[in-house]
């Protein structure tokens, strides 16, 4: 029971970290970045390559993966989304799906479809708490999630870049007229989101060590679900949504059915959205008439 809970929170923490990327980008650019899941996959491959082929120490591999994904996120935004800043959100959505397929197929060309065994980057003994064994990976994942949450909250609330991000998400035009570099702020958001995706990629692949070009797709969709579940655009919402989703998934797997667990997860989403259309922490926007 306890071990299920810990595993659920751990898996949920990964979802939460990914969901933060979705929610931040949505908050500022009002777009659903469906390529986000594939950035996770690229993050995984980067850590895999630098560790297995180059033999770099784990911490360097993780940092390398973060740097590559951050740069990748900025490039994707500049090339694919920025030219469409004024276009309809549907056009941007389709582009995002295009970028997603592009990344998956690029990975397919480079690394082939054969699953790669992800190296164990976290070599720590598991912990024994009251007869339950808890893996170090799970604990590190949860810790990483908490640290990211705190740093991100402080960043968005207490620094000038964070405030600029919130201002841009509310009113780009007004922010620009106050001298805020809107494009730079959006790039920064993509950079942070993609950097987080890299961390999520490494944590995910450490917990489930098979790496394929489609590795990021399912967690990406689930994290998106988590972001919507918690109220898209809200940072604490993404966190709570992610963790709840992880717990539901693990418990569904353990007590109901492994095959049906994904269906159950999405059924919960549907129910939540029927009851509370803006998500758990989403605010209802009243249009002034």
């Amino acid at each position, binding site marked *: 029971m306890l071990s299920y809970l810990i595993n659920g929170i751990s898996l949920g923490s990964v979802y939460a970290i990914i969901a933060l990327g979705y929610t931040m980008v949505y908050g500022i650019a009002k777009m659903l970045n469906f390529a986000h899941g594939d950035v996770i996959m690229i993050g995984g491959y980067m850590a895999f390559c630098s560790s297995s082929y180059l033999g770099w120490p784990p911490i360097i591999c993780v940092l390398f993966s973060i740097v590559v994904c951050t740069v990748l996120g900025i490039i994707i935004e500049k090339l694919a989304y920025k030219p469409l800043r004024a276009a309809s959100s549907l056009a941007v959505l389709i582009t995002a799906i295009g970028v997603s397929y592009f990344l998956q197929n690029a990975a397919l060309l480079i690394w082939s479809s054969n699953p790669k065994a992800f190296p164990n980057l976290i070599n720590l003994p598991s912990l024994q708490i009251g007869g339950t064994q808890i893996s170090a990976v799970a604990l590190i994942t949860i810790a990483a999630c908490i640290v990211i949450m705190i*740093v991100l909250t*402080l*960043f968005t609330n*207490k*620094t*000038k*870049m*964070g*405030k*600029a991000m*919130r*201002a841009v998400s*509310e*009113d780009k*035009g*007004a*922010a*620009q*007229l*106050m*001298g*805020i*570099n*809107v494009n730079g702020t959006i790039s*920064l958001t993509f950079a942070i989101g993609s950097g987080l995706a890299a961390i999520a990629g490494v944590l995910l692949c450490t917990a489930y060590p098979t790496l394929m070009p489609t590795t990021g797709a399912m967690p990406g969709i689930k994290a998106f679900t988590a972001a919507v579940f918690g109220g898209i655009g809200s940072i604490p919402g993404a966190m709570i949504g992610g963790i709840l989703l992880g717990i539901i998934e693990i418990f569904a797997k353990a007590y109901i059915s492994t095959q049906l667990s994904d269906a159950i997860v999405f059924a919960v989403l549907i129910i939540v959205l029927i009851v509370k259309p803006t998500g758990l922490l989403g605010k209802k926007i009243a249009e002034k008439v």
Partner: protein
Amino acid sequence: MANDKEQKLVRVQSPNFLPEKELKNAPILEVSHLGIDFGGLTAVDDFNMVVGQTEICGLIGPNGAGKTTVFNMLTKVYQPSRGTIMLAGKDTHSMNTIQVNQAGIARTFQNIRLFDKLTVEDNVKIGLHNSINYGMFEGIFRLPGYWKEEKKSHEKALELLSLFDMQDLANDYAGSLPYGAQRRLEIVRALATNPKLLLLDEPAAGMNPSETQELMDNIRKIRDVFGIAVLLIEHDMNLVMGICEKIVVLNFGKIIAKGTPSEIQSNPEVIEAYLGKAATTPGKEA
């Protein structure tokens, strides 16, 4: 600098500008032959204006005359189709909105556009954004540079707010403020960007007479404390006639009159634009 002076001399001699004696001092803003087309529609045409360094100028005209369009061109929300805008002797042609703001033009909006989900103080800090100096790294790890700069901007924000007696509201959300306070906060936020020229788009809209009076005092105070120029769009004639030293009247995108408040009040074309042409007036050309 020499170049600046030369340009000023040339421009002041141009017949499109008011005679030099009417300018308080060297102009901060010189607009000549400004025009913009939207598709086939000419929204503003041949707009000329000079604003002195500490002048309060008014831009008036009936609804749809193109007043806000002029503001949008000055702040580069729209790129003008024709004409030049000189800000403190510098051509703003190649500048974008952000650069124009940094060069010294700040504005408020006709319909309030505060950042509702940010606190009052943070709204002001958005205005201060470019004067706060610390990097990403310092911000994330909260190094001494971060604390120093945040403290400085906090003090500066409170100082600006106290100018309008708003320091006690610093921690409230901007969206929760009463209407009048939101209008004042917009002005404070614009002032935080350290402008040389402040554009106010209908600052008195929706205000009662006593609030309007207070606003007039505040606009004068801004000019005197900061030593900046103010250009305002307003429909409230008491305010316009009460504080503006110079008024430009726009109708159908064209300037129909320029001058002091008393000149404008007695200008037949202006009266016509506002009240319509008298049906029986003989010998009057449109």
